[in-house]
């Protein structure tokens, strides 16, 4: 059965810290891996990764995929209280009807 596992499940840091969130996956027909940020209700799209070793970057957030070891990391540098959220990792399959399989998420809390 396909599986997406995120770690840690929760994390508390202080403003200015750098954090690394992990996502490992076991998917039969991998197409892409996606990261979402979920505050309150609606997840918002952050990154899509399809190729190994190519870093995607947006401001203080960056992510990279390792298709050999089947994992991805999401880095956040110089964290701010506004980064507090649940970060979701999801995997898209080929021939899977375009559905996404999500992990349980990492709950990040950034304190002053």
């Amino acid at each position, binding site marked *: 059965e396909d599986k997406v596992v995120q770690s840690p499940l929760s994390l508390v840091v202080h403003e200015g810290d750098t954090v690394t969130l992990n996502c490992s996956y076991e998917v039969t027909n991998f*197409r892409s891996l996606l990261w979402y940020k979920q505050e309150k209700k609606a997840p*918002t799209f952050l990154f899509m990764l399809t190729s190994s070793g190519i870093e995607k970057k947006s401001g203080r957030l960056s992510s990279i995929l390792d298709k050999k070891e089947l994992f991805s990391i999401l880095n956040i540098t110089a964290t701010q209280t506004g980064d507090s959220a649940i970060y979701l990792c*999801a995997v898209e399959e080929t021939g899977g009807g*375009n*559905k996404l*399989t*999500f992990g349980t998420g990492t709950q990040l809390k950034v304190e002053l």
Partner: protein
Amino acid sequence: GAGVSQSPRYKVAKRGQDVALRCDPISGHVSLFWYQQALGQGPEFLTYFQNEAQLDKSGLPSDRFFAERPEGSVSTLKIQRTQQEDSAVYLCASSLRDRVYEQYFGPGTRLTVT
């Protein structure tokens, strides 16, 4: 509209009641998805539409769950004879046909079955 909207935002139902949850996708988005998110869990796929066609309903947990999108725009997720285990947030997402990975989510409907 500017984003995906869902209604109602909150719904409390007594066990055994039927409920209907509505999703208005972003205008022009061909693909529409329904997810169920239990507390402390990631969203779990329920069903997927491309226009009015329901292409994948493999995630619907039982035959009490039914979704439709008759005109290829607004979608309704109906749950018949609700059970306590149906309590969750129901998320709707939409995307362009060729960018299904970039799904835009609505705020969700929190369903509580008492």
